[in-house]
């Protein structure tokens, strides 16, 4: 944001003549709008991408008509359709919570975009507790999911909401512990500091170090579960719970859940990119932000690939994976990372 203000001061004549409040406020507004644009754009592309990826894995073509080239405008058309649909709230629903839930879910994903380091200077706010902030704010989504499940007054939705709560809370723990293995050697929670610690060539990325290499997989699996993707998609398991917590939602409210899901997919991939794949670092022929987005998109593709290949786990097996497999591994990794850091410092 400071960078944005500098640019504005240099490029816009008379910007430094404005009142101090406006000088601070305008870059904030601009950054917010950019973020909002990104959060809206990412799901549009990701949804189209998912439909194409799934189609080609299943010997189909996917959308081919809307917009000409490979149906690129299909998601926009679908979005417009959802906007124009009738807004239905079940008669017995808790109206306030029912209306609030999609907003809470979406806000959680949206707010986390603030600390994503797209490039050396492309970051809305480099909070000194960036990693902690992401872990905290992205868990806001689960509150929205429980609200949706409860407010719908539908048993399937309730099942979905309860499953989501259990699942996200369980997977949060190994994920955050595994993230610690990166924080320990860097010594900072700031996203930019973590990226800068990985500068100086591809092999300085954390994924190429033994402890953090394992941590990467724990984080990948954990975040996969947090965004409810196959094989951990039990909160919205179609064949069991119809549509899980958003069974009763339609129109734009449903679209909000849908957008949030894809925004979250990108978010967790971006997080893994920042922590383990060197963030915006990359060979010099492409600018930093392009590398960052390319890496995140590659991880999003892996998520889609898994979704269209694997069946779904059962709820008890899911808990087993979290508490009995991932959690012990991440504890050991934290211990190993700490020991390694001490050894490198030469401390006794």
């Amino acid at each position, binding site marked *: 944001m400071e960078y944005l203000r500098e640019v504005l001061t240099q490029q816009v004549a008379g910007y430094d003549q404005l009142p101090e409040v406006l000088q601070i406020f305008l870059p904030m507004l601009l950054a917010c709008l950019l973020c909002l644009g990104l959060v809206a754009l990412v799901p549009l592309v990701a949804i189209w991408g998912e439909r194409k990826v799934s189609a080609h*894995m299943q010997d189909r073509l996917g959308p081919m008509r809307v917009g000409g080239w490979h149906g690129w405008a299909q998601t926009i058309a679908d979005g417009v359709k959802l906007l124009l649909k009738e807004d239905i709230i079940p008669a017995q629903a808790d109206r306030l919570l029912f209306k609030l839930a999609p907003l809470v879910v979406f806000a959680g994903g949206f707010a986390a975009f603030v600390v994503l380091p797209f490039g050396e200077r492309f970051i809305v706010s480099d909070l000194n507790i960036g990693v902690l902030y992401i872990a905290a704010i992205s868990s806001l989504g689960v509150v929205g999911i429980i609200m949706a499940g409860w407010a719908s007054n539908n048993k399937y939705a309730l099942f979905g909401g309860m499953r989501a709560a259990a699942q996200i809370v369980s997977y949060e723990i190994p994920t955050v512990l595994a993230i610690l293995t990166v924080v320990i050697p860097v010594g900072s929670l700031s996203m930019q500091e973590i990226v800068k610690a990985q500068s100086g060539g591809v092999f300085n990325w954390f994924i190429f170090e033994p402890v953090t290499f394992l941590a990467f997989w724990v984080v990948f699996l954990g975040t996969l579960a947090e965004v409810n993707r196959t094989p951990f998609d039990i909160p919205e398991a*179609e*064949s069991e719970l*119809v549509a899980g917590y958003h069974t009763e939602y339609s129109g734009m409210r449903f679209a909000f859940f849908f957008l949030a899901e894809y925004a979250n997919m990108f978010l967790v991939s971006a997080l893994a990119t920042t922590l383990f794949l060197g963030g915006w670092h990359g060979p010099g022929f492409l600018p930093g932000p392009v590398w960052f987005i390319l890496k995140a998109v590659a991880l999003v593709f892996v998520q889609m690939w898994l979704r*269209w*290949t*694997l*069946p*779904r786990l*059962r709820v008890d097996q899911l808990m087993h994976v979290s508490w009995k497999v991932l959690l012990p591994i991440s504890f050991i990794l934290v211990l190993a990372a700490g020991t390694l850091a001490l050894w490198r410092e030469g401390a006794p």
Partner: protein
Amino acid sequence: MQVEAYAGEEMVLNMGPQHPSTHGVLRLELETDGEIVRKVIPHIGYLHRCFEKHAENIDYPGVIPFCDRMDYIASMNNSLGYALAVEKLMGLEVNERVKTLRVLMAELNRVASHLLSIGTYAMDIGSFTPFLHCFREREKVLDLFEWLCGARLLYNYNWVGGVSHDIPEGFEAKTREFVTQFEPVIAELDKLLSYNKIFLERTADVGIISEEQALSHNVTGPNLRGSGIGWDLRKEEPYCGYETYDFEVPVGLGEHGPLGSCWDRYYVRVREMEQSLGLIRQALERLPEGDVHEHIPRRVRPAKSEVYDRTETPRGELGYYLVSDGGLIPFRVKVKSPCFTVLSLLPAIAKGGMVADIIAIIGSIDIVMGEIDR
């Protein structure tokens, strides 16, 4: 529904009749304690179309289209059973070409039916891609049927004393082509789904039907063979000359957990498809000359008598009990449905499982509500 009678801790969950994976319009009343299911009560009858009453008001050949509509996934096998029963009632003998064509179509239909069963089962477990791969293959069989008799699902093909159409020119080559390209698909399916770790975890220790349970509830077909009992009417009481074909009866082996699990039933179907391909090849090779309309009677009027005849459909033993009073219209047509008997076992095997297990079990017993409700 007596909600008051429940202890209070349990939640009653109505699964169906509109639910993505109750395979039609089955309604299950689940008594759940969290994710654990304490009690399952199946409710049927949402697709009741008065088949048996209809049959008492039309002439014998007129019943055949109604037979097709019972198990709409395996119409060829349904009408075959009825045609055989009426022929037995009349003491009619058909020629070799008709017999071979019936075997050919029944086995093609068996492949299509098992493909649907396997595909939807994969979807029940949460895997979407195998479903579409299976449907792609099934489509090819349906194309063959469309070419043969004009219909893709409800064929009215097996008539009393013959079949409706002889095969068109080039049909044999096309069928051979399908069989050849389909064999590798089964191997692909094994890689993608059958031996997938998650799929095994979900199905190999779930919904166990023991040998005694299977026999006491008259479970038949792949469900019975999944429990390790190699009973197949095509071997035990051959019809249409099945005794002259060379094929095996796959049974569940309990390779990945207790015998009679969902996975065993699923895998019996996969291996039955392989056997069916072998049968199709043999039928195509022998296909004798003859007129398929040679023995079709001008008027179907059996003498006063009764008959029970059963055949092996993709879902198990389908029995027809026919009573004739000597007129043009059957006095009584009673159907013994394989899906009904296996569904009666559901409360026993689903008790104590989780909600996700109920879905896995329903998918693995492969029921078609059209046949249960009739």
